[in-house]
């Protein structure tokens, strides 16, 4: 079974540009999560989408946004890039909440974004 896939693997942008990162969840998963892993800061939660809706958002400015498509894949957009946005962006997927108390999040390999 295919895992979570992300594209591109690497992305180089300059300050002020926009970046678009893509994620395809594991088949059957309806929830997609985005995390930022910046050097020295650890993994930080960005966004959670489920069934096409944004369910939760981390403490990031509005220039970080995203969406989930009807096939449950997702896109993360970062506008007006700043140098400190350089990081590994990880996507994870899980089954929808349902009546389960906990759903394991499976991570993709990430997109390495470098802002020059």
């Amino acid at each position, binding site marked *: 079974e295919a895992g*979570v896939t992300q594209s591109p693997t690497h992305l180089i942008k300059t300050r002020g540009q926009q970046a678009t990162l893509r994620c395809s969840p594991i088949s059957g998963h309806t*929830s997609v*999560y985005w*995390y930022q892993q910046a050097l*020295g*800061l*650890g*993994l*930080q*939660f960005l966004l*959670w989408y489920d069934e096409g809706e944004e*369910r*939760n958002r*981390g403490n990031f400015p509005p220039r970080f946004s995203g969406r989930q498509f009807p096939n449950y894949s997702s896109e993360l957009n970062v506008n007006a890039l700043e140098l400190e946005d350089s990081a590994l962006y*990880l996507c*994870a997927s*899980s089954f929808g*909440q349902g009546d389960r*108390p*906990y*759903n*394991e*999040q*499976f*991570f*993709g*390999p*990430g997109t390495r974004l470098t802002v020059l």
Partner: protein
Amino acid sequence: QKEVEQDPGPLSVPEGAIVSLNCTYSNSAFQYFMWYRQYSRKGPELLMYTYSSGNKEDGRFTAQVDKSSKYISLFIRDSQPSDSATYLCAMIIYGNNRLAFGKGNQVVVIP
């Protein structure tokens, strides 16, 4: 105070030694506690998760939770070079689905 504290210092141990990792947390609403392993250039993978205070074993791995002290631990027995990776603690509030991570410990097991 950060929600989850994990001393991010690297750890080098000889093969066969016991590796001991720990995290503390400040938010008593956390209900589920996980340990993830992350190899270089890969995404994190779940090692273990626990809900209640106490110990949980899975092969060479033991996860320990003490909710009264807001302290969790991971022990790796008979460590192998293949255990060399970054280990991240994480925790979650039911229904929130936002994983809160520690900064991770890079573990190197020397043959």
